[in-house]
């Protein structure tokens, strides 16, 4: 746990923090980043898991490729995104080649931008296989018998997914989603690398305050750190409460 080792504990910094509008911006940006990444990742992961659960020609290869991002460090993914998404990057060049683009700066700004688009894509690249594997494991343990029963009872494909499968995978999915959200909320390196200098997410703001030559900024950094930690802790207590809630309903 972070130690406020420099001076006697005071809430002076927290007050200053909460009244600073740039803190609010940073906080909201962090929330936006975590929420968007997690939501999109969950949807894509479920889609991928539904695709890969039954064997078909080539499914084995696709599943292996699907798992490829898991051991790849985030930085490598970030490097790749830069190559693809900058205004002089590969996608821009493809568009130029097809005549849809005339100059590099017509390509939208996706990297080093305010909306952290490249950052989100990096997290999607890493998290979709992670959540996808968890959902796949759940789907395998469910088996297909429930769907068969639903089928003979008249449920079509969408109904079987919505009323039978989805409720059964939701607990595991939500838990994993919360983990991913907490992780992205507290993550630092990729937003630092691929985002703007200012505004950026909370962990980056904290870091800048920490390494600021003005030592007065250190406690501010600590304060931000505590806020981040509190948020993450709060999020992580949710699965506990959620699973107890599910348990009670039974």
């Amino acid at each position, binding site marked *: *746990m*972070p*130690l406020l080792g420099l001076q006697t504990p005071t809430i002076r910094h927290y007050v200053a923090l909460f009244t600073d509008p740039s803190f609010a911006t940073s906080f909201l940006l962090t929330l936006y980043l975590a929420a968007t990444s997690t939501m999109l990742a969950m949807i894509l992961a479920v*889609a991928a898991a539904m*695709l890969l659960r039954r064997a*078909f020609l080539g499914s084995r290869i*696709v599943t292996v*490729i*699907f*798992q*490829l*991002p898991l*051991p*790849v*460090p*985030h*930085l*490598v*993914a970030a*490097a*790749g995104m*830069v*190559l*693809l998404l*900058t205004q002089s990057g*590969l996608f*821009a*060049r*493809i568009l*130029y*080649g097809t005549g849809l683009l005339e100059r*590099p700066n017509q390509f939208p700004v996706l990297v080093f931008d305010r909306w952290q688009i490249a950052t989100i894509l990096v997290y999607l*690249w890493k998290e979709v*296989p992670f959540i996808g*594997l*968890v959902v796949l*494991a*759940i789907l*395998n*343990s469910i088996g297909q018998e429930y769907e068969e029963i639903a089928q003979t009872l008249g449920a079509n494909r969408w109904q079987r997914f919505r009323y039978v499968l989805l409720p059964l995978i939701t607990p*595991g999915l939500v838990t994993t989603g919360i*983990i991913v959200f907490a992780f992205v*909320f*507290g*993550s*630092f*390196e990729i937003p630092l*690398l691929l985002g703007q200098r200012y505004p950026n997410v909370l*962990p980056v703001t*904290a*870091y800048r305050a920490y390494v600021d030559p003005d030592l007065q900024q250190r406690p501010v*950094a*600590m304060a931000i*750190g505590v806020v*981040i*930690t509190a948020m*993450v*802790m709060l999020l*992580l207590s949710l*699965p506990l409460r959620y699973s107890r809630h599910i348990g009670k309903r039974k």
Partner: protein
Amino acid sequence: MMRRILRLVACALIISGVLLPLIPQMVWSFATNWFFPALLPPQWGFKAWRYVLSPSSQVGEALWNSIGVAVLVVLLAVVIGLPAARVLGLQQFRGKQMVTWLLTAPLFVPTIVVIMGIHIVFIRYGLADTFLGVVFVHLIPALPYFILLMSSVFANYAIEFEETARTLGASAMRTFWHVTLPAIWPGLTVAMLFTFLVSWSQYITTVLIGGGRVVTLPMVLFPLISAANHTNAAAVSLVFILPAILILILTSHALDSNASAIGGLGRL
């Protein structure tokens, strides 16, 4: 018919989505002067690789440091983590939920936050700017990760095997070596490999605690990306990614059968 087309499209999307950030990097590392709007490098060359191999890039030094730190982290994780995981996986005791939660918390408390607090401690104990210090700081996220994975392996493990061995006269040491170890070996390899990866990918922890004295691969890569030095970044990326790919190949079949480990994470 429609299904098959949709399926094909989905597979294509997955394959391209996964490979797109990777393949261009590989190509780029062999390119020279590959600028907009060329779709393929006008010139091929080894400029980036010459850079990588030269001592001034620090890539060689970083590679050794990264490997060294990661290996030590894994060893320490096994020595410290295995007994803890065993207790967690096999035994029930009061406050187990609490302990589990405490143990896994470091996994999710953002490392940046932990570092800011721990930095002072490391300085005080002379661990800052040292190799050992970096190893210890990597243990903070790595150890809980290892314990979590191994405790789910132990949860599926039947202690009756050991009891049988003991009643047949085997000592604790021999029981461990001949009975326990082979039984947990598949899960153990997966856990060790992923713990390796945790240490391998650490950036800011190494920067802050290592103080720039301990140089690892991510530290070389980061500024290259930041400066948009595409060719060199691509080359270093490839060096950086190699162990990761090796690991995936080694564990991919174990991953299928050890979906319980991943599933265990989902049951958190």
